[in-house]
């Protein structure tokens, strides 16, 4: 794309092009597919510039008036902001950029030491930056990367095949010990929702269901509308209910499973696309032998998350239910 053409498109999108030129450009937009794509590209880049806060005050105002009245463009702006956050998980020191811009050759030797110091501090910040909760979750994911000890899906945990074992999980792997130390220390330190939630996940994977439930409930007192917390509490109650049922064949676990359903329903009410909650509710329906509801939830799960390994498991479940019917 020629720079003049690009500038013209940019002016048009911001509403700066004279009417006659704008009309010619619009007709070209309708006739010429390649030109339409170029215009869409410039639109994307303007959105990105707005998100980066590099537009002039006037351009910014024009952008707000012309762009942000359109829901699709507001959504695109949100997507770009989210993408930028996602691409840069740890904040970088702003003096990096400052040095890059102002470092002239004559100052290079004099500032080399400063630069080294800056790099050193930067490396230190990047490596030390993650909180105990984050590090604990990384360790927890490492510990259960080859198999998961419970059938339910726990938020923040990657896929691993379900391995059927009875009784509590032996806490003998270094990763498990590390995650326990980090998460317990984090939860006893600030008792933030994030810390309580992470510790609850740890207990859940250890099959210490009562402890897990206590942590999740404590966290929910602070954020009652957190869908992920409801999902994990539902998962803990589901696993506990299954255990009670296996120990007492005459109707044991009923109350616990009912309570699990209430939390999973609430999670999906708060966020209908929350995959873990959908997965867990399908498991729960299987436990209560509500086969048509289970089938419906598995099918919905597959439609929401068609390509993951969780989905493969969901497909097997669908086949099993259909065979049963």
């Amino acid at each position, binding site marked *: 794309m020629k720079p003049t053409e690009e500038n013209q498109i940019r002016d048009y999108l911001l509403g700066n092009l004279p009417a006659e030129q704008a009309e010619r450009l619009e007709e070209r937009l*309708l006739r010429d597919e390649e030109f339409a794509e170029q215009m869409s590209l410039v639109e994307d880049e303007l959105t990105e510039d707005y998100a980066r806060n590099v537009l002039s005050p006037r351009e910014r105002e024009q952008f*707000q008036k012309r762009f942000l009245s359109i829901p699709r463009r507001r959504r695109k702006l949100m997507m770009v902001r989210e993408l930028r956050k996602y691409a840069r998980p740890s904040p970088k020191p702003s003096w990096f950029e400052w040095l890059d811009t102002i470092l002239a050759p004559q100052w290079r030797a004099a500032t080399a030491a400063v630069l080294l110091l800056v790099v050193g501090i930067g490396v230190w910040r990047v490596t030390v930056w993650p909180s105990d909760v984050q590090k604990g979750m990384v360790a927890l994911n490492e510990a259960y990367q080859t198999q998961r000890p419970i059938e339910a899906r726990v938020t923040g945990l990657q896929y691993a095949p379900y391995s059927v074992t009875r009784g509590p999980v032996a806490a003998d792997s270094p990763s498990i010990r590390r995650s326990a130390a980090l998460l317990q220390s984090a939860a006893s330190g600030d008792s933030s929702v994030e810390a309580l939630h992470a510790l609850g996940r740890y207990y859940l994977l250890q099959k210490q269901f009562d402890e897990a439930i206590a942590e999740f409930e404590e966290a929910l007192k602070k954020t009652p509308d957190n869908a992920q917390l409801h999902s994990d509490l539902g998962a803990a109650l589901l696993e506990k209910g299954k255990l009670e049922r296996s120990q007492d064949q005459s109707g044991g676990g009923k109350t616990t499973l009912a309570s699990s359903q209430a939390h999973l329903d609430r999670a999906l009410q708060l966020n209908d696309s929350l995959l873990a909650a959908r997965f867990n509710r399908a498991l729960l329906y299987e436990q209560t032998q509500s086969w048509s509801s289970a089938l419906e939830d598995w099918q919905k799960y597959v439609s929401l998350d068609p390509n993951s390994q969780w989905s493969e498991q969901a497909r097997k479940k669908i086949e099993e239910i259909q065979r049963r019917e």
Partner: protein
Amino acid sequence: MQRRVTLTLLYFHAMEPDEDRFNLFLSWLSSDRDEAGRKYEDMRRRLIFMLECRGCNRAEEISDVALDRFMKRLPEIQDTYKGDPMAYLCVIARNVQLEYMRKTEQPLPDNIDKIPIDEDDPDELEELMHECLEKCLNEFDLPNRKLLLAYYEEEKQAKINFRKTLAKSMGIAGNALRLRVHRLRRTLELCMNNCLGVDEPVK
């Protein structure tokens, strides 16, 4: 595409029950029904984009009204009209937009970029957006995912230098890199819309 044509037919039924007019329009676009459907879809998509570029927040509705007016005029002009029909359609769309603006346009509030897209809770939307982004990025193959994230990693001057280096390392020109990332972003946007439950054409 088939679904869109069906939906559009339903729309016209709701507006004015004249399927014949729509069929005439499709056959005027092409004798092949599928090809005509594709052309219609493409025409509508670009018209919506043009109206959005004009700052119109009811682009889909207005483009449908413009297309309807065009279809109404078609029996009179189809044998005699010379030149590119898109120019004529463009004029109709502008007129419809002006009529609409005269009737409804209100000044925008100052905090427009803080207003949530729908009626949803913004925190919840942000959380959902994050989940959808993660899910959609996972659907990309690794090189494309890395490219997209790398493209958004750097800031300002560092960004410009980084993108130049990136293009060079891929053995392509800067413009080709921009276009490649643009197409990835469009795929991402489409996936995000599906994930968020938004039924809207991606431009």
